[in-house]
């Protein structure tokens, strides 16, 4: 059982210790304490490197000391002739004698006590990233204001995640920028733009100062940009090492800034903006785009007007124009619509006349009406020629859309009356 204190003496102490003996004591004090071992008597055969007889103090596999010979206190106020303090709670003491002693040696007497370890200072490794608080039997770490203690109870960080940027333009900077950023932190910022916009990040070289990479090229502190399907970075160094403009091809971007314990620098500041996705400038037959632009982007609306004689059919309804919108996926709406030649349809029949069977009834086609001669004639001037016009009507130069009328021919008998003379 661990004890707070104790005493160990060599065999037969205070009489002479026997030859050829080896004895070990395992000293253990409660955890969180160190061991203070001090000898009040030491009388062991002296030899070079204590090779014959010795008392050896080991801690954690490391020899803290190996004693032989005679020691006397150097201070009249203290009986201690030799002492060891170890910041660990276990200690092993081994006494060993060889086969012969030319004189009588009485061995050693030693005491040990549990002593508080100042974990904050007694070890080479710093136990806390910021503030270390020692107490008897242990220690705890604490953080400056606005920092929080990580789950490892050793490191402090700042709460810098969670910001979501939805505006089309914005500036994002590391915490405290341009003052040193916090250590041991992971800052995640989200840029979430409307579909149809591409996040474009711009960085000035001088706006970037992050702890450089180690000798193997690994960033200690790093800035990373992540989209759904690609990653930019990690970036670190005295100036921004990446392209000054990053086109992410995505409307969402996660900005991740991770820092380690050491070496905090100015940090970084970036600007971003949403670049509307372009739609291809398509050449559609028989139509005109309005407005005419060199480049069309998301949310642009164009009015596509069919040339004269062409129309767009939506269901059974014909129209001379339609609207198309550049969509978030970079494609035009209504892209299936196209201007087709106007179809005037089958020409209407007329009374007492006929129309020739047209080869087609599309824009520009020509038909001819005729009357049933010789008993009917075309009442109006302009002939019977009709042309399929741009508005889908058969049009005559004189009558317009009015159909020709076949009027009876008057006064012409099909056979003349030949009167017989009396």
């Amino acid at each position: 059982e661990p004890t707070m204190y104790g005493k160990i003496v060599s065999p037969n102490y205070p009489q002479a210790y026997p030859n050829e003996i080896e004895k070990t004591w395992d000293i253990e004090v409660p955890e969180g304490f160190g061991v203070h071992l001090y000898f009040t008597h030491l009388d062991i055969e002296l030899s070079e490197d204590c090779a014959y007889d010795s008392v050896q103090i080991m801690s954690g596999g490391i020899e803290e000391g190996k004693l032989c010979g005679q020691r006397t206190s150097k201070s009249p106020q203290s009986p201690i002739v030799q002492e060891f303090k170890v910041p660990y709670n276990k200690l092993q003491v081994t006494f060993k004698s060889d086969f012969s002693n030319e004189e009588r040696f009485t061995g050693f007497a030693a005491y040990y006590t549990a002593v508080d370890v100042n974990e904050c200072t007694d070890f080479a490794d710093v136990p806390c990233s910021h503030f270390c608080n020692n107490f008897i039997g242990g220690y705890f770490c604490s953080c400056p204001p606005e920092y929080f203690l990580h789950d490892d109870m050793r490191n402090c960080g700042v709460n810098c995640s969670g910001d979501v940027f939805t505006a089309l333009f914005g500036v994002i900077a590391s915490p405290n920028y341009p003052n040193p950023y916090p250590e041991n932190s992971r800052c995640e910022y989200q840029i979430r733009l409307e579909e149809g916009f591409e996040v474009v990040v711009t960085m000035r070289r001088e706006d970037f100062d992050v702890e450089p990479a180690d000798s193997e090229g690994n960033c200690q502190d790093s800035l990373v940009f992540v989209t759904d399907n690609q990653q930019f970075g990690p970036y670190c160094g005295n100036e921004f090492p990446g392209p000054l403009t990053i086109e992410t091809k995505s409307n969402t971007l996660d900005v991740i800034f991770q820092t380690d314990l050491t070496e905090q620098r100015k940090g970084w500041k970036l600007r971003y903006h949403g670049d509307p996705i372009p739609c291809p400038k398509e050449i559609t037959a028989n139509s005109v785009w309005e407005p005419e632009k060199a480049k069309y982007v998301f949310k642009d609306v164009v009015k596509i007007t069919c040339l004269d004689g062409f129309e767009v059919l939506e269901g059974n309804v014909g129209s001379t124009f339609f609207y198309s919108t550049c969509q978030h996926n970079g494609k035009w709406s209504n892209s299936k619509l196209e201007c087709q030649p106007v179809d005037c349809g089958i020409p209407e029949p007329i009374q007492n006349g006929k129309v020739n069977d047209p080869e087609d009834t599309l824009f520009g086609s020509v038909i001819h009406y005729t009357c049933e001669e010789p008993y009917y004639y075309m009442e109006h001037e302009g002939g019977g020629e009709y042309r399929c016009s741009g508005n889908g009507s058969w049009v005559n130069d004189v009558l317009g859309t009015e159909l020709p009328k076949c009027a009876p021919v008057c006064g012409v008998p099909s056979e003349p009356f030949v009167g017989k003379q009396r």
Partner: protein
Amino acid sequence: IFGGQAAEIQNFPWQVFFQSSRAGGALIDERWVLTAAHVVEGTPDPTMYAGSRCIRARCLESAQRLTAHRVLIHPGWRPVDNPSARRNFDNDIALVQLKDAVKMGPTASPICLPGSAAEYGPTEGDLGLISGWGRTEEKDIVVRLRGAKVPVATLEKCTEAQGEDPRAEAGAYVLTDNMICAGGEGADSCQGDSGGAFAVQDPNEGSPKFYVAGLVSWGKKCGSYGVYTNVKNYLDWIRKTMREASDPGHD
């Protein structure tokens, strides 16, 4: 027809047969028949046929039956109590609007109306064609169309013409400028030919083309001079009546 001969309907394709009054008319349009007022007087719904030279019942089966939509008698036509004793035939003209259009062809086609120019007023000696199923020298009734050529005469000839009973008729008949006198050489229209066209060749057309200069109206005696309604005097009334009756809002 006196002094005439058998004719084909192709010779007079405008000839219309009024079955109920056994008279004639002239087709002047797809939906209009011109006739004499006394033909349709008291006959608001006459039955007519076109396109047949023969008026037997069997023949008429293959003719075009014309149905009257309305009968429009000239407003100047004066009704009398006893039509058989009528002596004043002034304004003896009427229009019959048809319900359906007549299909034109070799046996049915209209005759032209006269132009308004002076040359459309027939002068003495001009030949006109008459046709009908009326009385002949031999028969009171014929079933086959007959036709004749008759010259235009002066109105005096018709005034001077002797009737069946000269004493009774002297000075009783009214002759006006609305009438044309024609005949005199044995060719004449007669009872049953009333309403038929007095067709004259258009002077302004190279190829033969006839217009209706007159309508068979009356005569003192068949076989000499006959009196015809001068259609040219009624052009305005004809056109106005046809225009107004064809107006969709007019009934």
